[in-house]
């Protein structure tokens, strides 16, 4: 092969890859039928054998055992493999940072004159390597959460898909995010008392803004919010936009639930809730969904003294809708540990005195439950008919660490299974240099 020929070939391959990545091909004309799999729906039910999933026009058409393959469908044989809905990370910062410690690549938080009005959606980089790496770990959707650094409100989060295309946002302005524990107290000047007052006064000022926007003076000494942030909090007060509240301790959780006494329309989502098990009946009664870390079991902070891995199981038993996410760091990178979090919940069922989850329940915490927490339970998160065609084929039990995805679809579109890490792996499959340095192997 001549050098020029190989260059041309490479250029062609690169071009095709870029086109595939940039042009979000919505759906294939041909239905896809994945057959013969151990199939889990994601709704909490246990997996079934010899399951079939049919995807057409980007949506799930049918899934279960004994499903007929529609005529003309492209059949994907998944015998000996497992099939699940794409995993949904209930809490992440994926797409907001390429290398979190490299400031230039990190869009997670800002020292900004704005807070509540900040919208993460336009900052999400669908070409960030952690998106592809997470997708190859079976994660197809993620809740993306801004971080607070200019007051207790961090801004508006989004739900995204992790597809290899340039349109990541499934739902922008999906929720407002506020800090209400140790971090919230720090942002409010140093005490929880100041934090609660700040929260209430900010929401009252948003109400003032809603009544008479033109009269609202965001610059006066009494103003806690500039006009832009006041406007952003209006849908929070009216309940048009959910409010995700980060609180860990039992007492902070109760304080958050009590906010509805002053603002009855608040649509609360609890993030963190490490001590949620202590007040699980109250959370369940308030019908507030929880997104938690799952494996926290250390008093890593004074607001987490009662941490236990049984937190999830105990809350689920009490009737709380529980999802899992990246509450304890690596939130921009390691979304693929969702299956590890879920698998460990199953492990707890064999530990005397612990409270775990069944396999199906565990999968639900990383699929349908986070979708429901975001108000998207009718659109994604499980393999029920009419939902997004987000499907993963695994080479083994998806909650085992030795397993991995072998195929991923998002909205019915087959995703590339390579990423920067697989390329590095292949380059260094043997450490020896060939006739030319490694840099020529690609």
């Amino acid at each position: 092969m001549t050098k020029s020929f190989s260059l041309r070939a490479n250029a062609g391959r690169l071009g095709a890859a870029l086109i595939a990545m940039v042009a979000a091909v919505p759906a294939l004309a041909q239905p896809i039928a994945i057959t013969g799999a151990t199939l889990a729906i994601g709704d909490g039910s246990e997996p079934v054998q010899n399951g079939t999933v049919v995807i057409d026009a980007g949506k799930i058409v049918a899934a279960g055992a004994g499903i007929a393959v529609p005529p003309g469908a492209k059949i994907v044989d998944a015998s000996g493999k497992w099939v699940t809905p794409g995993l949904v990370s209930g809490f992440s910062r994926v797409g907001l940072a390429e290398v979190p410690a490299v400031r230039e690549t990190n869009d997670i938080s800002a020292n900004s004159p704005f807070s509540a009005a900040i919208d993460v959606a336009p900052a999400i980089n669908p070409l960030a390597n952690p998106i592809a790496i997470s997708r190859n770990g079976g994660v197809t959707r993620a809740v993306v959460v801004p971080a607070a650094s200019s007051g207790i409100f961090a801004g508006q989060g989004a739900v995204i898909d992790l597809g290899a295309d340039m349109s990541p946002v499934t739902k922008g302005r999906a929720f407002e995010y506020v800090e209400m524990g140790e971090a919230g107290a720090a942002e409010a000047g140093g005490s929880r008392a100041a934090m609660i007052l700040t929260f209430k006064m900010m929401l009252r000022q948003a109400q003032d803004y809603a009544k008479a926007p033109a009269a609202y003076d965001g610059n006066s000494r009494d103003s806690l919010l500039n006009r832009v942030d006041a406007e952003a909090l209006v849908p929070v007060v009216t309940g048009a936009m959910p409010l995700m509240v980060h609180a860990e301790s039992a007492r902070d959780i109760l304080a958050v639930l009590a906010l509805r006494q002053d603002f009855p329309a608040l649509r609360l989502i609890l993030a963190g809730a490490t001590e949620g098990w202590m007040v699980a009946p109250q959370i369940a009664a308030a019908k507030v969904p929880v997104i938690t870390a799952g494996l926290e079991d250390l008093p890593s902070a004074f607001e987490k003294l009662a941490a236990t891995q049984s937190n999830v199981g105990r809350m689920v038993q009490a009737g709380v809708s529980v999802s899992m996410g990246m509450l304890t760091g690596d939130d921009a990178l390691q979304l693929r540990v969702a299956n590890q979090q879920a698998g460990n919940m199953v492990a707890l069922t064999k530990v005397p005195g612990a409270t775990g989850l069944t396999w199906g329940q565990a999968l639900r915490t990383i699929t349908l439950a986070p979708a429901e927490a975001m108000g998207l339970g009718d659109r994604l998160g499980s393999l029920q008919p009419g939902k997004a065609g987000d499907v993963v084929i695994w080479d083994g039990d998806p909650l085992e660490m030795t397993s991995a995805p072998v195929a991923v679809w998002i909205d019915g579109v087959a995703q590339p299974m390579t990423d920067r890490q697989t390329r590095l792996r292949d380059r260094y499959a043997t450490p020896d240099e060939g006739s030319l340095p490694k840099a020529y192997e690609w």
Partner: protein
Amino acid sequence: MAFSNRGVSLTVAAVLLASSATPLAARKDKDERPASQGASAEPENPYPSTYRPYGGRPTVLRGATVFDGEGGRIDNGVVFLSDGKVTAIGGPDTPIPADVVVIDAQGKYVTPGVIDIHSHLGDYPSPGVEALSDGNEATSPVTPHVWAEHSVWPQDPGFSRALANGGVTTLQILPGSANLFGGRSVTLKNVPARTMQGMKFPGAPQGLKMACGENPKRVYGSKGREPSTRMGNMAVNRQTWIKAREYQQKRAAGKDQTRDLGMETLADVLEGKIMVHNHCYRADEMANVIDMSKEFGYKVSTFHHAVESYKIADLLRDNGICSALWGDWYGFKMEAYDGIKENIPLVHKAGACAIVHSDDQDGIQRLNQEAAKALGAGRRMGIDISDEVAWTWLAINPARAMGIADRTGSLKVGKMADVVLWNGNPFSTYTRPEKVWIDGALLYDAFDPKRRPVSDFELGQIGAGDVK
């Protein structure tokens, strides 16, 4: 104690005597004998271990799948623990003594206790408040005089989680990585104690923590001090080794010089008494350190966090250096950008020494699962490593890299009875430790709420004694 089967019993007892008595005596000697030669000589062990095994009933684990920690596997195995030691190990025909506790372990797995070569428990304990943050003496890039053991807070609740959820029986506590020379490490038995000395692994060599790359240059560069670059890192390292060699030569010759704690550490490294544990991510920096170690005549035991070891696995093999690695961490900082899941299997495949480490209070509870990630990733690329061989990453390999392989790290007759009974295959996410023995003492039992340590910090707090 009596043995039910004739013949083999004597052999077992003889092996027990031979293998435990002599090393114990030698160990005690090395650990506790104060020494003083020459004006600058240090007392060899001024903070001696007071750890003593807690004792336990002679116990037989019968019927389990056994990974011996050195790559061996016994199906339907028998493991006998007595007097704090592994006193017999073998197949189903292994004679079982009478009057001992017999645990039916069919369907379960037995392994040597997990060894974490890289932990900051006690130095960065829970709760993570500033008042308890004692892991980095970040006031100078060269602090070989500090000893991590003097920061260890034995009441860190993290120790108990590592025991109960992770099956960790031995761990090395290292200073942090802010400094080029971070200080001396300490190896602990994972037993609750009132004092650090009560946890200290008798006779384990100390380590020296060193750090490459971003952390030292960032911490000191941001203060307008050297080093602010990687070349600055190397220059300060080399300048320090020059001084250390002078100090060591004077000390060896018995010449008068002012005793210098930091230089004593480095002189001990140059004399091979202290093992070097070098935080180093990038392949190119590891190569520089290897050359530096040859320039000054010391040996690197292990590169820690070495996310790029897979790029130079041949170099690491040829130089006999271990890599202590995560299962899947990558990208959180620039020097971690090229981390891949296949790092551990690729290092292993090249014939170099791979170790799974945590550097994390949560990760230490699931080192078996981190190993499983690596195992699966390796198998998918055609590197076929058996479960029992993969267990070396958690057992004999870290034991060797920490200089304690003659005492623990595998289920060999005469070694410490540091043993985990798992309720399933330990590479499964669904598996947890059921019982953990340290020196033959049952220190965790999933079926006995009282065999679950509760630290002073947690006692009387909400959730104390809860299944964590």
